[in-house]
């Protein structure tokens, strides 16, 4: 077990730059998730850490020492691939045992036929079998030891892949979208199992996903990536409550955040669609702003912070509903609102209200600007949250 450090990682494929100057410190035993849209460089970063791809610049350290010159297996990390990459011609047992036979037997003892000449091999294989069995018991896969991967379900294959990773007691686990090939229900189940596994093993895990729910539910910290940059690094709560850019705000949270065009008034107050909101910003570089409000922070009603919308349709999620609206002022802007199912469904034009402290304000480049609320009540809340 060990922490990881990435310094100035840069990678380009031909002319396209895929990773720009990535710096990342991952603590020992931490569960860090890399999230971001497709093609943002998550897998590439993971593969550089694993040693499957070499970086153009920068260095990777594991447990305080640089591993740039080491081959993948010498880095003593384990990787779980998206499609598991189990050896299809080997039994489950052989799949899990392979990392151990590779390191504990010499080349001669691994050769077909010739290996039977070695007496040491028998003893070593006995030890290996014991360790494989111990891992398999943890994952509840010992009942199908002699099956081939092709004869297993997706979730079982997933467990075998985990077993193959665990059996070596690696310094860190790297996982590249390990749950994306599973159906929705199994995914939720495996999410829980992985979290428990992490708690039990206490080993560093780096987990790539583009599913923000996985990122939110499993991680100690999330690194949100886009176009080869880390946009924000923080705890799930941090990233959700204080997104650093509009891209992060849009990516984290489901359904996605509502974004409205706004601008700064003469004395620093935020003006949204002709209404002056009780929020002030001081360090906006230009008057253009974007105001973001999460669908779950909106409700039908009136107040100082409202937008006027026209009802479109309702999405019933069972316990709650997503209401879809268009902005009356500019109908191309969709507005989403998350409500309880017992709410009456509105008709025609309504006003959607939100609290000033639920507003996220971004400058013309999409970067977050801290707001000052003039309302006494919300100031109290803000102070309370600062104390926390």
């Amino acid at each position, binding site marked *: 077990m060990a922490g990881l450090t990435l310094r100035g990682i840069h990678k380009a494929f031909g002319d396209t730059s895929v990773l720009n100057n990535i710096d990342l410190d991952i603590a020992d035993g931490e569960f860090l998730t890399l999230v971001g849209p497709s093609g943002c460089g998550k897998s590439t970063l993971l593969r550089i850490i694993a040693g499957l791809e070499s970086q153009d610049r920068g260095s990777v350290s594991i447990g305080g020492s640089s591993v740039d010159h080491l081959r*993948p*297996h010498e880095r003593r990390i384990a990787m779980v691939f998206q*499609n598991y*990459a189990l*050896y299809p*011609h080997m039994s489950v047992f052989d799949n899990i045992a392979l990392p151990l036979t*590779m390191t504990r037997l010499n080349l001669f003892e*691994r050769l077909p036929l010739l290996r039977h000449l070695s007496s040491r091999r028998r003893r070593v294989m006995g030890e290996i079998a014991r360790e494989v069995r111990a891992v398999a018991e943890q994952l509840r896969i010992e009942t199908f030891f002699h099956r081939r991967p092709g004869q297993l379900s997706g979730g079982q294959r997933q467990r075998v892949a985990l077993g193959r990773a665990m059996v070596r007691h690696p310094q860190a686990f790297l996982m590249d979208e390990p749950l994306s090939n599973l159906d929705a229900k199994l995914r939720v189940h495996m999410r829980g199992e992985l979290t428990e596994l992490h708690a039990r093993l206490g080993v560093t895990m780096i987990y790539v996903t583009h599913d923000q729910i996985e990122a939110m539910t499993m991680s100690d910290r999330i690194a949100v990536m886009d176009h080869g940059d880390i946009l924000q690094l923080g705890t799930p709560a941090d990233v959700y409550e204080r997104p650093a850019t509009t891209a992060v705000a849009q990516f984290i949270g489901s359904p996605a955040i509502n974004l409205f065009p706004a601008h700064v008034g003469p004395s620093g107050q935020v003006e949204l669609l002709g209404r002056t909101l009780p929020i002030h910003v001081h360090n906006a570089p230009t008057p253009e702003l974007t105001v973001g409000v999460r669908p779950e922070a909106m409700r039908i009603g009136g107040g100082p912070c409202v937008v006027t919308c026209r009802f479109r349709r309702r999405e019933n999620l069972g316990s709650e509903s997503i209401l879809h609206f268009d902005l009356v002022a500019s109908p191309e802007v969709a507005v989403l609102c998350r409500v309880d199912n017992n709410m009456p469904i509105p008709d025609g034009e309504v006003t959607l209200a939100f609290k000033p402290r639920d507003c996220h304000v971004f400058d013309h480049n999409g970067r977050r600007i801290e707001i000052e609320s003039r309302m006494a009540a919300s100031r109290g809340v803000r102070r309370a949250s600062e104390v926390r």
Partner: protein
Amino acid sequence: MNAIIAEITPLAAAPPASRQRWIERFAGLGFAAPAFILLVLTNLAPLAALAFLSFTNYELGALDFSFVGLKNFGTALQDPVIRRSITNTLLYVAIVVPGGVLISLLVAILIHQRKRTRSLYEVIYFLPVTSTLIAMATMWQFLLHPTLGLINQVLKGLGFAETAFLSEPRLVIPTLAAIGIWQLVGFNMVLFLAGLSAIPRDLYEAVDIDGASHPIDRFLKVTWPMLGPTTMFVTVTTFITAFKIFDTVAVMTRGGPGGASEVLLYAIYLEGFQYFHMSYAATLTLVFLAFTLVFSVLQTFVLDRRVHY
């Protein structure tokens, strides 16, 4: 889903069930008929004619023939030419099958790792496949010429004695086998290349992380098992091609020197089309077919159990 089908079927299936079954049966036979008729005309009927002939004493152009039972088979068993032909053919096969499979596998693996020069090498190795063997045999004859041939010039330059590859009884089959391998490698290589491209890259990466970074380990743990179906196919086709050796013998050695390169198919050709012993040639052809059949079945069953699909 089942409920929907149950509702729809009574409406859609207007004809009663038994008529429906008849229609289906005839439609099935109709679709299978063209292939079946072709198979009968081109394969099964000639085979039956062959079997029929082998029990007669028919000679090409003869007006009459009579049944002689198993006499032809008895003659074949005693015939020293046939015995020699079978041994020579088996020796040829024993060299060409492992050589043709392993060399093409090696070439395919080496070429597969090339990036820019890959297609160049593919063309170079595939060229022998596209050329006619008769023309190539003439070229080989020239290359192997004891005094003028390039190969002997090179050997002499290296200080070896002049070797008459095609007129030395002990060397003639290995030499023909080498030419046979040369002809086969390109085709087999293409099959192996296709097999190699189908191996997921993930597996090599997994094996890299698991510690098998030695090329031998990578080969044994991933490449070889994943190529199993390709290897089986290549082995069987190579075997059949090798067993059918004919053109190089016919053009370059005519079975010589002193019968040292007589092979089964060449013997059949001589009996049938030079000596006009049609019934005897038919008998030999059946023997030939029996050999290929037995070997193919054996290979398929032995290899099939070890191959992972």
